[in-house]
Structures are given as structure tokens and as C-alpha cells.
């Protein structure tokens, strides 16, 4: 399998001294659906944000398609980020703007500054935005304000926004953690569509093992900033589960 991302010995120490990642080495392969599990505070979000460089790694290297991106900056960094989509637990839409404008904001990396500030997106881009809203099944909401939508719908807008980037890689930071079980599946289904139909590699932080088993092709577990498990989702045994989540943990099912 072809490597998309190659991370070696990645360390992240926050300015306040928190040692969030303690030498993580990881390969992400083209086309896979990788889940990251681990307790709260184990460093899952930090790892994702180091990959698209929202956070600066303290040491170690990150290679993307064979190119070292650990210390790129300026337009090179923006170009790099453009090829990586990201969705968040709290959706992070711009609440006061329309659904359509939120989707269009996914195109900001590819449009001139002035044109974007005056809101002049080309017709073809608008068409693409509508098309993306179609893909996630909420085209009819295009003109509503983003905060008028339900949580699940907002996350679908966020997916439509990252689709604007035609991302090679999608980073999803607990995309369903603030949604109910039924809605969770509808959102996960769209991540699956991105993965299978758009050929987008997905890295997804998840809390529910049932979702991990159902959607991902591979799983890693973090504990206190280190990778403690790597394998197929079906192979997570009771024993592994306890070593990842602690002795007293009981698995909760989500259907």
C-alpha cells in the first residue's frame, strides 16, 4: 500500500509544559479509514492538529506524499492545508452566515484575497457548493442561517465545506461526539462516502468502538501521548480494551 503520511517520532509539548505527544510514529496509507481511539486527554486532537499544522510539532517529522511538511510556512503551508479537510466535534461553522456561504468558505484557499473579501465566488464554484450540499442531502437548506440547522445537519454542512477542497486527506476530530446515535450514523455514512467514492483518506478520532468496528479499516490507540495499539478493528480484544481505557472500563454500544 502507498503511504500518504509518514510521521516519525512526533513530540508535542505545549507552552504550558503539557507533554501531549511523546514520540508518535505512524504511517497513514492512501485510501484507508484510520480510527484513533484513546481516553480523553490522550493526545488525539493534538495529533490531528499537528498533521495539518494547526499546532506546531515540537520535534519529529511529518511527511506528506513523500514531502517533508514539518516546518513549511506561508503560502506553502496554506497550499498544504488546502489538500487536507478537517471537521470538528462542534462543527465550527460560522453561525451567522448562510449554509451556502459556509460551504463556500471551504474554497478560500483557492481564491484571490480581494475576490473572497467582497464575496465574489465564480459561478462554477457556487455550483460546486450546491452540488456538495446535494451530496450531503441538504441542498434545500442553502439559504438558511447555519445556526438554524440541527447538529447533524450542521456537521453535514461542515462535510460539504471540506468537499470544496477536494481533500486527499480528511481529519475528523470526534465528528459525532455531540450527536445522538441515529444522527451519528448518518454523519459517519457521509465520511464513508468521502472515503469510498471520493477516494479520500480518512483519519477519525472516535470514542465508540462499535463505530470504529463498523466504519474503519484500521485503528490505533493512544494512551498518554503514545501509541499503545495498532491493528484491525475486529482484533480489539477485551484485554486490549482494558489496557487502552483502564481496568474498570466497560464497552458501551452505539447502534
Amino acid at each position: 500500500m502507498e503511504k500518504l503520511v509518514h510521521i516519525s517520532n512526533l513530540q508535542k509539548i505545549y507552552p504550558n509544559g503539557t507533554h501531549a505527544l511523546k514520540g508518535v510514529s505512524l504511517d497513514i496509507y492512501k485510501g484507508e479509514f484510520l480510527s484513533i481511539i484513546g481516553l480523553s486527554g490522550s493526545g488525539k486532537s493534538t495529533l490531528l492538529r499537528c498533521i495539518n499544522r494547526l499546532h506546531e510539532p515540537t520535534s519529529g517529522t511529518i511527511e506528506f506524499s513523500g514531502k517533508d511538511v514539518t516546518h513549511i510556512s506561508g503560502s506553502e503551508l496554506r497550499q498544504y492545508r488546502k489538500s487536507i479537510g478537517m471537521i470538528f466535534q462542534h462543527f465550527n461553522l460560522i453561525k451567522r452566515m448562510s449554509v451556502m456561504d459556509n460551504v463556500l468558505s471551504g474554497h478560500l484557499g483557492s481564491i484571490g484575497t480581494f475576490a473572497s473579501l467582497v464575496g465574489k465566488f465564480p459561478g462554477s464554484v457556487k455550483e460546486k457548493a450546491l452540488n456538495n450540499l446535494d451530496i450531503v442531502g441538504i441542498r434545500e437548506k442553502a439559504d438558511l442561517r447555519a445556526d438554524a440547522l440541527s447538529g447533524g445537519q450542521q456537521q453535514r454542512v461542515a462535510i460539504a465545506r471540506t468537499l470544496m477542497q477536494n481533500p486527499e486527506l480528511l481529519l475528523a476530530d470526534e465528528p459525532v461526539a455531540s450527536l445522538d446515535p441515529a444522527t451519528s450514523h448518518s454523519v459517519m455514512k457521509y465520511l464513508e462516502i468521502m472515503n469510498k467514492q471520493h477516494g479520500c483518506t480518512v483519519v477519525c478520532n472516535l470514542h465508540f468502538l462499535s463505530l470504529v468496528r463498523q466504519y474503519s479499516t484500521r485503528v490505533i490507540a493512544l494512551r498518554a501521548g503514545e501509541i499503545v495499539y495498532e491493528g484491525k478493528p475486529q482484533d480489539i480484544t477485551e484485554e486490549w480494551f482494558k489496557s487502552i481505557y483502564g481496568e474498570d472500563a466497560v464497552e458501551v454500544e452505539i447502534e
Partner: protein
Amino acid sequence: MNDKVKIYLLDVFFGWYLAITFHRVFYYHVLLSTDSPDFTWNLMLPYVGVAIIFSVMCLLTGASLGKKIISSTQKGTWQNEFAINIAWILILMTFVTSWVVTKVNIIQMFDHERLNAAGRLFSSLLQPNWNILQKAIMAMIETIYLAFLSTAIALPVSFLLGFLSARNLMKGNPISFALYNILRIITNFTRSIEPLVWAVIFTVWVSSGPFPGMLALMIHTIASLAKQYSEQIEDIDAGPMEAIEATGARPIQVIWFAVVPQIVIPFLSFTIYRWDINVRMATIIGLVGGGGIGSMLIQYQMLSQWNEVGLIVLIIALVVWLMDYLSAKIREALR
């Protein structure tokens, strides 16, 4: 500093304060009903002497207010009671001193002649002279426009300063963080000077009239709005910023798409409220030569033409009430 030293210095200060207020205020003004002798630095010596004796007594007996403030004294002991009594005496002496310094004179206030004068004043205030109505309205309009111009000119400047003095946007790199700190100091200093004082400065600089009044309000408005704006920016949800940044957008696009939509409404509401404040301020500033209705008011007041003053007061009250009402309505609608 060591706690013992702090306690001792506090007791010295309390002793000195008690000595000086008892002697200069209580003894001369209250007991003898005369003025206290002119102040010279030599007079300080005996007070300091008393203060040192007092503080040493406090130190030796443990009956010390300084100790009660800095560390603690045990409840139920006489030392604790003593410290509490000292505190009450300090408050009492401060009140007596304020009374003396303010030259409060209640007897004079209800003197027959004075009451008559006040009665004449109030009755002429209630009979406004409508002949100057047109002139007063023109002056009021001048004031409103002056307030509007000062707010309008301040607006873009404060807008820019608001971003540059928002901690969350500026803390990223050392240069911008230094700029942030410098701007904070300048705007805090500017804001701590009242518009009235700015007006005095500008009337000296560019002679009196509406223009210096406008400048005074503008300066103060820039500093106040910049502060309110930056606080609003510091308060925004960082999530959307992160999301827009992750799309590969430039910093200016991040601000325009993720920051600005979160702040326009509060900004508008602050700005309208500031205009409202500025109309009131412009009136006051007129009193020191800043033009408009305030200047007109002070002219008639100096000529003791109370019927004219009455009309002007009436117009000011009306406009201030109206502005207050309108700005509240607009801000409500914006929410």
C-alpha cells in the same frame, strides 16, 4: 516584602493618618471652629513621631490593625477588638475630614434669603423663554452633529485598533505581541483622561468652538471603542477560526470570515451607544468652550438669564431622553 515589615508600615501609616486628622481637622475645625494653620513640611515631624510611637505600641502589644489585615488576629481577644475599633475610627475620621474639606454648610442652604433665591431660579427655569427656541435648536443640532462626527471619525480607527489590541489575535508572534502591549498602554492612558480634560487641552490648542470639542470626543471615543472592540474580539469562539485556517485560508481571510461575523452586531451596538454617550458628553464639553448647546448654556448662565437657561435645559433633557430611547430600541433590534 516581608509580612512583618508590611504590618509595621501599615501601622505607621494608620498612626500618621490618625494624628494628622485628629490634630488638623478634629482639633482646629471641629473643636476650635477655626482654620488649621498653613501647611509646612516641618509640621509633619510631630505627626511622624506620633505615628512611630503608635506603631511601636501596636507591635509590642499585638493590638494592630496592620496585623489583622495582613495576617490575622485571634477572635475574642482585646487586641482584636482594639484593631476593629481603630478601623472604625479611621472611617469616622475620613468622613469628618471629607465633610470639612467639602465645606458642607447645611445652615446656609436653608437660610431664608438663599431659599428665596433658589425659588426665583426654579420658577424662572419653569418659565422658559421660547423666543430663543430657534437659536437653541440650532445649537442642539450642532451638538448632535458634533457627536456624530466624532463617533464616525473614531469608528474606523477604533476598528483597526480593536483588532491590533486583541490578545488572542496578537499573541502569536513576538512583534505583534509587543505592538499589542504598546497599544494597550496608549489606549488605556488616553481613556483614563476624561473628555472634559481633552476639551480643555484642545481649546487651548485650536481655540474654542465645536472643532476642539469634536477632537476631544473623538480621542476619547477612539480609546473607549478600541477597548470594547478588543474585548469583544477576545471573547469570540475560536472554533470557526480554526476551521477556516484549516482550509488553507490567509490570515486576513480568517479574520474576515471567522472573526468579523462574530463581532459586527456587538460592534454596531457599542458604536450606537457611544454616539448616545457622545451627545451627552458634547453638551458637557460645550461648557468649557467646546461649542454647541453647552456653550450657549454657560453664556446665559453667566448672564444669570434663567428663563433662557430654562429653555436650554428643557431641550437638552428632551434630546438626551430621545437619544437614550432610540439607541436602546436600535440595540434591542440588533440583538
